[in-house]
């Protein structure tokens, strides 16, 4: 397995690969190199059939406190234009398998944008969410203004992005930003259990379900429904569908093979 500097990539267990952000000295600030490593690790996970689900986490204290401000300050407009970061974000966005974020502590700025790239977020009770870019005279630059509003609605998104204020897990759960809140010590355990549950399902069905849900943000309802129907029909050709339905009728657990 490739050795990385800014992230730790565990060997997959039960179909789940854990990737941990690991720049404790910088509160896991997302420098370009880190995002590049993440994009690379996700590309490897895409290719590896053993890996069904990827779990992304930070440390006990911080998921990620934001982009690397020093690194960003050094870039002028042309520098930003040539920056590779958007490519890395695109690679993360294009990851086709379920991606779960387990968040403890601070999840701010680019950190929140990264967490929102995940398909769902499991948060420890002490987690704090915010987009404080406005405090620096900038705005979120990796989807914060787009994904947050789709996730929590206009009013709360405006409040967070225009004021730079943070919210805790109670508000994040109520607003639908996170899927589940748990005791901080259990965040990774819960997220792992959820990931393992997903990993037992048909990888083809997982992929198509994820695609269909993400398409709902890009298409009108009628097109989304059409896409869903086609994905549904496509699955009828899979061996996993036959296995899933047979196992259900025979009252036994299914064995999905990704075929």
């Amino acid at each position, binding site marked *: 397995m490739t050795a990385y500097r800014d992230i730790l990539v565990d060997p997959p267990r039960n179909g789940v690969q854990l990737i941990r952000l690991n720049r404790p000295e910088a509160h896991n600030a997302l420098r370009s190199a880190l995002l590049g490593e993440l994009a690379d690790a996700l590309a490897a996970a895409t290719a590896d059939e053993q890996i069904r689900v990827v779990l992304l986490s930070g440390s006990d204290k911080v998921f990620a406190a934001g982009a690397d401000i020093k690194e960003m300050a050094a870039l002028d407009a042309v520098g930003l234009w040539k920056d590779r970061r958007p490519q890395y974000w695109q690679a993360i966005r294009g990851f086709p398998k379920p991606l779960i974020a387990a968040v403890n502590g601070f999840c701010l700025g680019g950190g929140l944008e990264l967490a929102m790239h995940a398909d769902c977020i499991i948060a420890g009770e002490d987690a704090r969410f915010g987009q404080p870019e406005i405090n620096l005279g900038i705005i979120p630059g990796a989807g914060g203004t787009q994904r947050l509003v789709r996730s929590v609605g206009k009013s709360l998104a405006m409040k967070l992005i225009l004021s730079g204020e943070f919210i805790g897990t109670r508000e994040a759960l109520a607003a639908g930003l996170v899927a589940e809140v*748990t*005791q901080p*010590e*259990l965040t990774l355990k819960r997220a792992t259990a959820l990931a393992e549950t997903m990993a037992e399902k048909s990888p083809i069905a997982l992929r198509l379900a994820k695609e269909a849900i993400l398409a709902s943000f890009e298409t009108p309802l009628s097109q989304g429904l059409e896409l869903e129907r086609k994905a549904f029909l496509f699955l009828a050709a899979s061996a996993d569908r036959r296995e899933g339905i047979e196992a259900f009728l025979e009252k036994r657990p299914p064995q999905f093979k990704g075929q």
Partner: protein
Amino acid sequence: MSYDTIQFQVQDGVATLTLNRPESLNSFNTTMHGEIRDALKQVRQDGSIRCLLLTGAGRGFCAGQDLNDRAVAPGEAMPDLSLSIKQNYNPLVRSLMTLDKPVICAVNGVAAGAGANIALACDIVLAARSASFIQGFSKIGLIPDSGGTWTLPRLVGRARAMGMAMLSGKLSAEQAADWGLIWQVVDDDRLLEEARSLATHLATQPTKGLALTKRAINAAGGNSLEQQLELECDLQYIAGCSHDYREGVAAFIAKRPAEFKGE
């Protein structure tokens, strides 16, 4: 580290924080808030500290906010009291309530206003027989802050909470203990000794388990039974992973005293 308005010592795993402005009954001013914050940060971060003891120097415990900082001259703009609450009192209450170590309060004399409610935010409150609790806020047109309106009804019920808050009378230590406001009354000359021995004892106990117990009991007020049962289940799982649980069971089976590390 030395402070101007508090004393702070660490010994045998116990951090003792003594409010130390005896000439004004240890009332809070901005400096004192800053120094307490600093000391509590140390308590949070230092793993060798396994219990916090809070008390006051001189004849009072704490008279609440120093009103000399608060006089409003005629014609002067009204002060924004919410600022000081947001910056000083609320963070203090939060850090006492969420500190993952037991907090003992030895109320050595009068505890008034925010002083009373800070004491009640601690986990185990001992009071000297001559000590007293006074809400006091209603006498100057304010409401009980520092968690008072949350803590009082939970500790003594609505009727007594209303009486204490609206009448601002003086509640003796014995009455406070009878009502369930505090844990215990101790003779004046024994208070510090008792509090210290309790703190020293707690500092040898399974700190992680105590911290989780505290988390559960403090969460109970806002939870339904169903939520609380779920929480207990989660916290017990966490406690069961601790070194001290393993040690506790091993010691019990071997019929020897347990040696807890707090982990």
